[in-house]
C-alpha cells in the first residue's frame, strides 16, 4: 500500500498518535520538502493545523495534481491561504459563548463512529477545543459536523469532481485526542483505518 504523508507541524511537541501501531504507514516530512517530494508515491496527505499554510498553498498546483490522480487529503485548521480554487478562508463563529460552540452530528462517518459529539463540544468541561468556526465547503461536499453557532459546517468530506477526496476539519488537529479518556480518542485510529481503506480501494481501481 502507498504510504501516508504527514507534514510535520511547527513549534509543537510531536503528536502522540504517531507512535501508535496504527500510524505505522505514516512517513513524516517537513513542509519545506514538499516541492522535492514525488506526491504520486503517497496515497494520502495529513496536514496539521500548525502548518505553514503559505508554503502549502505555494504547492497548490501539485496538491491539485495529487487529488486529480485520486489522492486523499486530510486537512486540519483554519484556511488562511486557500490552496485550491474551490476553497475560501475560515469563518469564525461570532463570539465565545457555549451557545455557539456545541458540536452537532449531521451525517454518520466511519471516522466518528462511536464518538459522542459531547466529547467534541467539551474537553474537561471546556468548550471550543475542537472547533470555533468553519472553512466554507465547496458545492457537493457532505457535512459531517456543524457548530450550533450559524450552523457552521465544521467538518465535511468533499468528493472532488476532478478527482480525489478532501476530508476537512476546520479546527485543532483531530488526532490531538488520541490519549484522551473519552470517546474522542476513537478518532485517530478510526481516521487512520478509514484513510487506509480509501487508499486500498483506490489502488484496486487503478489499472494494473
Amino acid at each position: 500500500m502507498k504510504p501516508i504523508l504527514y507534514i510535520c507541524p511547527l513549534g509543537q511537541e510531536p503528536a502522540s498518535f504517531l507512535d501508535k501501531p496504527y500510524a505505522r504507514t505514516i512517513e513524516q516530512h517537513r513542509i519545506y520538502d514538499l516541492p522535492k517530494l514525488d506526491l504520486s508515491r503517497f496515497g494520502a496527505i495529513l496536514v496539521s493545523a500548525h502548518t505553514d499554510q503559505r508554503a502549502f498553498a505555494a504547492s497548490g498546483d501539485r496538491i491539485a495534481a495529487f487529488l486529480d490522480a485520486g489522492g486523499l487529503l486530510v486537512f486540519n485548521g483554519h484556511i488562511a491561504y486557500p490552496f485550491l480554487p474551490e476553497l475560501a478562508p475560515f469563518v469564525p463563529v461570532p463570539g465565545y459563548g457555549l451557545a455557539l460552540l456545541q458540536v452537532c452530528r449531521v451525517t454518520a462517518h466511519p471516522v466518528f463512529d462511536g464518538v459522542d459529539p459531547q466529547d467534541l463540544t467539551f474537553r474537561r468541561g471546556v468548550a471550543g477545543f475542537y472547533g470555533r468556526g468553519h472553512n466554507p465547503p465547496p458545492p457537493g461536499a457532505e457535512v459531517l459536523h456543524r457548530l450550533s453557532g450559524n450552523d457552521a459546517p465544521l467538518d465535511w468530506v468533499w468528493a472532488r469532481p476532478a478527482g480525489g477526496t478532501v476530508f476537512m476539519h476546520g479546527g485543532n488537529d483531530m488526532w490531538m485526542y488520541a490519549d484522551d479518556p473519552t470517546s474522542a480518542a476513537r478518532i485517530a485510529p478510526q481516521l487512520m483505518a478509514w484513510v487506509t481503506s480509501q487508499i486500498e480501494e483506490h489502488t484496486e481501481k487503478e489499472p494494473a
Partner: protein
Amino acid sequence: MSAPRIVAVDAGTYFHRTTFSDPRFAPYFDALVYAPELAADLDWMEADCLFVASRQDPAFLQAVREPIADFLAAGKTVVAMGESQSETWLPGVVWHPSEVNFWWWLTPGADSGLRIGATEHGLFKHLTLADATWHHHGYLDVPHGAISLVNRAAGGSILYEDRMTTSGRIIATTLDPCYHHGSNFMPATTRFLTGFLHWLRESLTGNP
C-alpha cells in the same frame, strides 16, 4: 526622527495571519518578514524591533543567529514569544521545560503560580497579571541584570526584559499569545497583545 519600525516574523500559519491582519494589531507592525526568507533578505535589520511571534520553525531563526546578534549589538530590540526555541538563537536565553497545565483555572480559587516581577514597570500600565495568565510553556532563567516582569512562584521567569546581555534589548517569554489570539481562543491572550503592543510601541519611542 522617523517613527521606530517594528518588523514581525510570520511563519505562514493561519494564527499568524489572523493576528497580523487583526485591525487592532496591524497598525503596530510596519512590515512582515516570512520566516523562510529571514536569511535571504536581511531588510528587517533596518527596523528598530524584530517581533518573533509564537510558534516558529526554529531552524529559520537559527539561520540568522548572527544577524540577530548584530541587530542587538546595534542597540535594537528583539521580542521572542513562546514555543520557538529562542534559547537556540537568542543570546542569554536559558529555557527549562515544565509540565504545561492547561487546566489549573478549572479549580475554584486555584493559584496560577504567576506573580508580577516588577510592579513599577511600564508594561503594567497597560496590562494586568490576569492578562498574562493562561498557561506557559516552560520557564526562563533571568539573566544577570535583566528585569523579570512575570515570575513563577516556583522559580524562574515567564517574561523578562534584558538590557544587560547585549547592547540592545531582549524581551523573552514562554507565553504564546499569537497562537491563541489567532485561533479565536482565550480572551486573555487578546488583552495581553493589546497591552503588550501598546507598551512596546511606547517603549521604542523612549516613552515607556
